[in-house]
C-alpha cells in the first residue's frame, strides 16, 4: 500500500477534480440525520458524519433495478437498460467498505457472476474516510474497523492533514494532479497511530465483545430469546433496508399502462419480510416473526462466515438505530453476555 499526506484544505480540490469525470456521492445532512446523496459542490459534504440512515449499497444494487425491457407487440426484449454512471462514493467509512467487500464476494462469485452489480461496481470509485465511533458502532467487534482492500483512496484524518492510503492508479493520478501530495513523515505515522488508538478507545463499552459467536449461535438456536425478539418485531424490514450487506432480492414484471410494454425488475427483498420463505402452494417455511429474526441474525453472525470466512454483519449499527423495538446484533451480543454470566455462576 502506498501512503501520501495531503492537507485537509486540499480536499475540496480533490472533490472538484473527481467531479470532472464522475458523479460524486457523499454524506450530506438531511434534517437531524445524514444520507448519501449526489453533490455538486464540496460545501455540501459533511465529512465528519457519524453514520448515514441507509448505506451506500443503494448505488451498487438499487432498490428497484430494471433488468430488461420487453415489448409484447413486437415480441422483443431489450437487455439491461439500467443507467450506469461513472461515480465516486466519497467519504465512505471502513464498515461500509467492508460491507461492499461482502457484496463483492456474493455478486462477483465466479460461479454466478452478477452482471448488473458488476456494471455498477466497475463504474464506481470508492474514497473512504476515517471516523470516530458513535453509540451504536461495533465494527471493531466484527473485524470491520479497518478497510484493507476495497477502496481507491482512504483518507485517514490526522489533525489538519489526511494520511491517504492509495488503492488504485486511477485515483492516485487524480489525487496527485489535484493536491499538494507529500511523502508521509515519521510524525505523520505517529499521528496516525495516535488517531487509531483514540478510535479504538472510543467504542461504546456497553456493547460486549463476545468470542466464538458462531458457536454460541448454534448453541442457543432453540433459546426462548428468539421468541422475545420475534414477539416485538414489527415485520417492517427497516433493518434490512438500511443494512450495508443485506443483498436479497425479488424479481417481478411491471407492465406499462396499456400492458403492451413493460420491464422485468429486481427489487430489494429481505428474510424479515413475512412472505420471504413462502413457496408455491402457500407453505411458509418461516411464518413466525421469531423464525425470521433468528434467521436474519444467523446469516449476519454465523452462516455467511461459514461460506465466506467473515461475518456478514460489519457492525455499522444502522439497524440498531432504525429498529423501533431494539432488535439488532447488539442485542444478540448482550444475550450471549448474559448467558456467559449465568454459566459463570
Amino acid at each position, binding site marked *: 500500500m502506498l501512503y501520501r499526506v495531503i492537507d485537509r484544505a486540499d480536499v475540496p480540490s480533490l472533490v472538484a477534480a473527481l467531479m470532472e469525470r464522475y458523479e460524486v456521492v457523499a454524506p450530506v445532512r438531511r434534517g*437531524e440525520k445524514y444520507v448519501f446523496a449526489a453533490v455538486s459542490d464540496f460545501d455540501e459534504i459533511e465529512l465528519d458524519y457519524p453514520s448515514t440512515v*441507509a448505506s451506500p449499497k443503494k448505488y451498487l444494487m438499487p432498490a428497484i433495478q430494471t433488468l430488461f425491457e420487453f415489448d409484447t407487440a413486437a415480441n422483443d426484449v431489450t437487455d439491461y437498460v439500467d443507467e450506469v454512471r461513472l461515480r465516486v462514493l466519497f467519504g465512505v467509512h471502513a464498515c461500509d467498505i467492508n460491507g461492499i467487500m461482502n457484496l463483492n464476494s456474493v455478486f462477483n462469485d465466479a460461479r454466478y457472476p452478477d452482471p448488473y452489480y458488476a456494471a455498477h461496481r466497475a463504474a464506481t470509485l470508492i474514497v473512504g474516510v476515517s471516523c470516530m465511533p458513535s453509540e451504536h458502532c461495533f465494527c471493531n467487534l466484527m473485524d470491520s474497523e479497518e478497510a484493507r482492500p476495497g477502496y481507491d483512496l482512504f483518507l485517514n484524518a490526522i489533525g489538519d492533514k489526511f494520511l491517504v492510503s492509495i488503492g488504485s492508479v486511477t485515483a492516485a493520478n487524480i489525487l496527485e494532479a489535484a493536491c499538494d501530495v507529500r511523502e508521509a513523515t515519521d510524525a505523520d505515522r505517529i499521528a496516525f497511530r495516535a488517531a487509531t488508538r483514540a478510535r479504538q478507545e472510543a467504542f461504546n463499552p456497553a456493547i460486549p465483545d463476545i468470542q466464538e459467536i458462531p458457536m454460541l449461535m448454534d448453541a442457543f438456536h432453540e433459546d426462548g430469546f428468539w421468541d422475545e425478539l420475534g414477539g416485538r418485531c414489527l*415485520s*417492517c424490514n427497516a433493518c434490512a*433496508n438500511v443494512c450495508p450487506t443485506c443483498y436479497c432480492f425479488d424479481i*417481478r414484471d*411491471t407492465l406499462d399502462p396499456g400492458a403492451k410494454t413493460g420491464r422485468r425488475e429486481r427489487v430489494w427483498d429481505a428474510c424479515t419480510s413475512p412472505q420471504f420463505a*413462502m413457496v408455491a402452494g402457500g407453505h411458509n417455511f418461516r411464518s413466525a416473526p421469531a423464525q425470521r429474526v433468528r434467521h436474519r441474525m444467523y446469516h449476519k453472525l454465523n452462516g455467511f462466515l461459514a461460506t465466506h470466512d467473515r461475518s456478514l454483519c460489519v457492525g455499522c449499527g444502522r439497524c440498531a438505530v432504525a429498529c*423501533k*423495538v431494539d432488535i439488532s446484533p447488539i442485542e444478540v451480543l448482550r444475550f450471549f453476555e448474559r448467558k456467559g454470566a449465568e454459566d459463570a455462576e
Partner: protein
Amino acid sequence: MTDAPRAPRVVFAGLASCFGCQINITNIEEHLLAVLGQIDLAYWQLTSSAPMPDEFDVAVVEGAVTTEEAARTVRRLRERARTVIAIGACAATGGIPGMAAGDIAGHAAAVYGESTPAACGSLRAPAPVSAVIDVDFTVPCCPVDPFDFVRVLDAALYGSNRLAATSALCGECSRNEGGCLYARGQMCLGLVTRAGCGARCPALGRACNGCAGLSPDANVGAARAFAASRGHVPERFDEALQMFNAVALAAAGKE
C-alpha cells in the same frame, strides 16, 4: 377465420364512499386511453347512465358495504364476475364508513332522529367488501394510487408474478431516509400499516394515518408499546387507528 378475442368486460360499482378513488383513476391522464383500450368498459356511473349489463368479466368495487341493498349488489357482482377488485380504503378495510361499525343504529339516530329516511336503505354495520364476498384483488389507500389500480387491473387481466407483501410501512419509510416522525414528536401509524404506498405521507412530513390498512402481520402490541415509550398513550394510538381500521380492530378484539 375466428373472431378476435373479445375484450374483457369491466364494470365499476360505487358503494358508500366519496367516489374519490374512481375520480383518481382518471388522473392517469395521457395513459387513460391506453388502459381503456384493453377493456370493454361496460358500466361506469361517472361516465354513463346506461344500466349495468348482465354479463361481465371484472367487477371493480369502490366503497364500504353499509346497507343490505349494497350487500345484495356485491353478491350479485360476485356471482357474475370472474374477478372482483376492491379499490380504496372503504372497500378494503371499511375505511371512513367503518368508523360507525360499532354502533350504526346510534349514529343513524344522531343524524336522522327517530326515523331514518327510506333513501338510506336498510342500514347495516359498515364493512369491507371482503366481509361479504370473496375478493380477488385489493387496491388499498385513500385514495388509491391510480397506477396501482392499473397494475392490479393488469394482474386481473393477464396474471402477475408480483406477490402481495404484508410488511409494515416503517421499512419503506427507512428507504426514503427522511428520519422517523416519532423523533419529531409525531405519532405515526407506519408501525402497523401495510407497506406498498412508498411511505409518501411520512416523506412529506405527515404521519401515516393507516389508510393502506393494518398489515395482517402487524404487531399492534409492540407498536403501542413503542408509541407509549415516545409519549403517546395507547388510547391515542388506538383512536388514530380507528380512522381506517375500526373494523379490523373490532374483529381482533373479539378473538
